[in-house]
């Protein structure tokens, strides 16, 4: 078997290599984006990294003395009276855990809700699909804070849902939904759903629907066609959607602040607290970087799961 025969049918095997000038030109094209990234992302990140190793100022800000206290306080608490008495910072760890948990649940909920939605759009006639996609993006038109307050209006004790439930007589006392994890989850699922639907739709749109017919023809029930053919083929969409939802969800600030009240903090709120009332910028910086590390670990996990050869899993 020669190399030429191995190439996929119609593949252009005689494509010339890019010349040196082309490569230089490509660097020039990417330069503006690189500059923005360096100034807007890497610069501030470097500042945060430096701050995390300094001492907090009394009224906020930092004092330029090297200290690992910020990082220490992420995970441990020193007793106020006895500095040598060290206990794990359970409050912080709880918030870490809650953030990860809520972000995972949000990803799961948006995936479950987003799949049928994306499927619905992908199976419409090509000329009406843009309209449906357009409708999916409508929530982005309104400010996040306003939309979150709208949810609050719906689920608060004297809100729409409780009034209806009480009016119909299903419940006698209002169900406490606001200021619970449920409220945060509801709000985040609502906010991030389009971020799941759009990449899912993109991968479904490329799906060859003849493959479903082929599966159905080869004795697979509809459910097994979904499981054996559709899901493996739209997996890239799920992965892209999960990244787009999980990362902002774990650092969410507005939604838990409004719908979680003061009690149900997430990482975003905890970090904000250190730069505000807490007046502990080094701790805030260390917490922010810890969040970054969690996100990077999650990303590495995703990358590993995508680069795994398919054949080994189905064998």
């Amino acid at each position, binding site marked *: 078997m020669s190399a030429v025969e191995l190439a996929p049918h119609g593949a252009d095997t005689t494509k010339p290599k890019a010349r040196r000038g082309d490569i230089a030109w490509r660097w020039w094209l990417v330069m503006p984006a690189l500059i923005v990234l360096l100034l807007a992302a890497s610069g501030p990140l470097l500042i945060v990294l430096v701050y995390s190793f300094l001492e907090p100022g009394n009224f906020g800000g930092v004092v330029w003395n090297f200290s690992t206290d910020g990082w220490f306080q992420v995970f441990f608490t020193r007793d106020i009276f006895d500095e040598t008495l060290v206990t794990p910072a359970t409050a912080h760890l709880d918030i870490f855990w809650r953030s990860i948990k809520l972000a995972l649940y949000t990803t799961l909920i948006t995936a479950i809700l987003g799949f049928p939605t994306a499927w619905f759009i992908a199976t419409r006639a090509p000329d009406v699909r843009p309209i449906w996609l357009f409708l999916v993006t409508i929530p982005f038109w309104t400010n996040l804070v306003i939309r979150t307050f709208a949810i609050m209006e719906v689920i608060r004790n004297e809100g729409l849902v409780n009034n209806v439930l009480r009016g119909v007589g299903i419940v006698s006392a209002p169900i406490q939904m606001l200021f619970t994890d449920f409220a945060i989850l509801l709000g985040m699922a609502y906010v991030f759903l389009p971020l799941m639907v759009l990449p899912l739709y993109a991968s479904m749109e490329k799906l060859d629907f003849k*493959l479903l017919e082929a599966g*159905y023809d080869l004795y697979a029930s509809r459910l097994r066609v979904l499981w054996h053919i559709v899901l493996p083929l739209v997996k890239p969409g799920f992965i892209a959607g999960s990244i787009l939802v999980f990362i902002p969800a774990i650092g969410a600030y507005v939604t838990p602040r409004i719908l979680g009240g003061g009690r149900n903090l997430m990482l975003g709120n905890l970090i904000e607290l250190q730069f505000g009332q807490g007046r502990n910028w080094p701790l805030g910086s260390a917490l922010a970087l810890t969040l970054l590390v969690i996100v990077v670990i999650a990303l590495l996990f995703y990358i590993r799961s995508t680069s795994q050869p398919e054949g080994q899993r189905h064998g």
Partner: protein
Amino acid sequence: MPSSATRSDIEVEKLSKVFGSGEDAVRALDDVSLTIPENEFFTLLGPSGCGKTTLLRMIAGFEQPTSGRIKLGGSDIDDLPPNKRPVNTVFQSYALFPHMTVAQNIGFALKMLGKPKAEIDETVSRMLKLVKMEPMANRKPAQISGGQQQRVALARALAPRPRVLLLDEPLSALDLKLRKEMQVELKRLQAETGITFIFVTHDQEEALTMSDRIAVMSAGKVLQVGPPREIYNHPAERFVADFIGDTNFIAAKIERANGRSATVRLPSGTALDAGLPEGLSPGEGESVTLVVRPEHAKLAAEGPLRGTVENAVYFGTDTHFHIRLDTGDLFILRSQNAAMANGLPETGDAVSIAIPEGAVQVVRG
């Protein structure tokens, strides 16, 4: 009635399919009845949009008939979904599962049928051997050529041993050389497996070379069903004669009609014997259209047709003479070339055309 010697596999009874409704309604299939016996290579031949793919999709179960019935081995299958019909399809685009290897593609149906792993492995390796794809077992579809994908698609559809294999223009994406190879290959596979093949194509040559019987379709109707020789030599309809091979149409009048044969009189006054299609019984003096194949007519010193050579096109194996008849019609005559090209007419020469017995057929339309 189907003959008692061979059992019929597929019976299509008065099948119609209408897409859409109201003014936009399209009658894709119009009162089609067919009987396809076991172990036959049956071809649905027709131009695109004639309803052949719709008929195939209804047999597979992807489309529901508007009216009529489909029987498989004597029992109704109209209520069965595609995954419950012992019928498999080879798709025009192959539709191989891109995330599975060649072997997994071939084993898919057996896995869905819940066969034990040992049996699946055994069948898969037998299928790989049958289509000569053993070295490619662990490749993904994107890593093999179009011709190889075609073989895998065939193996995948044959693996569960369906009663009927449906092939939807499976060779149309291949280049000419590969297509010729696959035609032979398909014929071999059909003979080896003994499975009924229903093959859809718009390529008349493909239909003639491969089929046991051909159904020629046009505008949702089956115009004629028969073995390739009969379809070619005795077309019943003008459309069939025109669609399959090159054809000369000649106007004539009926002198006498008797069963399947007739005597017709040409405008030149010569009488000829001609075949009559089944069910056609024209009266004396009625105008009819005759069909004469270009290679059946001969240049001769004397003949019923006379004309002038307008053009002589050399094709290597044969020469095509474009002859303007005295009646004004154009007649194409194909003459096999000999080593010596002595005495062949040239442009402007007056010639006579002889038509051997059995070469004239009356057609409808």
